[in-house]
């Protein structure tokens, strides 16, 4: 079972490495969205410091949502997904593997890029630290929850827009606690409580989201 997990993660990472342009689109989307805000709002550093948590988290939400389309779509088109549904290994593990690989390719780069962009927003070191930790806890949860939406909209017309309508309301708790952690740290209150809630959301979605995604895949691929 674990070898199936490893094999699938390795396969997806290999596929992603062969198409590197796909890999960078999500990251560049994140960078561009975050860089657009100072242009729209003005370069006042005090304002930027204030809005940074919200901007970063909303950008992360949108970037993660944009990447969802590719999560199952390619496997669905070439039939690999049906093989996964028929495989003797539990679908839970396979979905978890797909989501893990997806997060490594689209989520982790955002986490690593965030502190660099945070410097552009003149954020303090401890706020940057809280940002990285909150993104590290939050983006996997986003990928896991988003997988449900991606599985439900598999092969539908206008799937991309639809996914945003389904998934964004479900993303709201992650957004609230994620940006809350950074804000609380920046204002000196300490983001411990928010980070704990974020961790709880991650654990819960780790347990339940793959079940829901598996059910959704079975509905969509039947």
């Amino acid at each position, binding site marked *: 079972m674990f070898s199936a997990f490893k094999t699938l993660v390795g396969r997806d990472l290999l596929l992603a490495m062969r198409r590197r342009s796909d890999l960078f689109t999500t990251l560049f989307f994140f960078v561009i969205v975050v860089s657009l805000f100072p242009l729209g709002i003005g370069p006042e550093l005090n304002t930027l410091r204030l809005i940074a948590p919200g901007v970063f988290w909303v950008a992360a939400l949108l970037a993660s949502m944009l990447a969802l389309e590719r999560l199952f779509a390619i496997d669905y088109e070439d039939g690999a997904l049906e093989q996964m549904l028929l495989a003797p290994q539990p679908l839970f593990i396979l979905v978890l593997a797909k989501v893990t690989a997806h997060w490594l390719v689209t989520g982790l780069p955002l986490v690593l890029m965030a502190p660099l962009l945070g410097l552009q927003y003149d954020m303090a070191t401890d706020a940057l630290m809280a940002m990285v930790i909150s993104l590290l806890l939050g983006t996997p949860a986003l990928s896991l929850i988003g997988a449900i939406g991606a599985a*439900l909209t598999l092969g539908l017309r206008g799937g991309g827009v639809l996914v945003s*309508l*389904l998934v*964004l*309301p479900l993303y*709201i708790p992650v957004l609230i*606690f994620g940006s809350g952690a950074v804000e609380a740290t920046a204002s000196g209150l300490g983001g411990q409580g928010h980070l704990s*809630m974020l961790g709880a959301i991650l654990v819960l979605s780790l347990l339940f989201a793959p079940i829901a995604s598996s059910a959704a895949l079975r509905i969509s691929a039947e």
Partner: protein
Amino acid sequence: MNARLINWFKFSSPATFYPLAGKMVPIFTLLAVVLIGVGLYMSFFVAPTDYKQGEGYRIIFVHVPAAWMSMFIYLIMAFWAGLGLVFNTRLSGMMTRALAPTGAIFAFLALWTGAFWGKPMWGTWWVWDARLTSELILLFLYLGYLALQGSIDDTRRADRAGALLVLVGVVNIPIIYYSVQWWNTLHQGATISMDNGSKMGVTMLWTMLIMALGFWAYTIAVALARVRSIILEREADTTWVSELAEVRR
């Protein structure tokens, strides 16, 4: 015991449910008209003027029942969705589908009347308060469900996908509600607390209950009428539909 079980499942078939719903729609329509009529009369003429909020508070007789209904309907949808996924009954999906627009309308109505109430009372149309925000998210969940249902042509898949989405949403509702509450308390105290239910006068409470019951009756009537059209639409090529008096005409 056995007979009761059979009775329940008898109406899970669209063919037997369709005439039953047809009989129930007029009853509940009448109930809704009477209850909402009495409720509106009481809310405008019988309920006393509030000593603090004046006449403007009367919108609460529409606002609170609408907000209740928007939440209840989502729970009922989740019930039907779960039932449909477990027993694989067609009617459950149709009921979920039939309830969703009404729920969305009530969520919108609650927000709309809330804005009308908020302008004179709080001095603003909208506050990013925990309740307002979670009601808004509830509206988004309804719209997401309707969008998903609308974009899948295969009705069987649409029902099951929608059911799954509703169930995921219902898990999320308490999380959203509390997260929004905590998110707000960190920033500033809530602008106003809505816990004035216990201090409310008896007449006001009765008026609100009658309005709520009227909204229930309205919801049932509208949902049943809608489920009848959905049944006709989906079962159009079956013999029992073609033998119906209203179809043959």
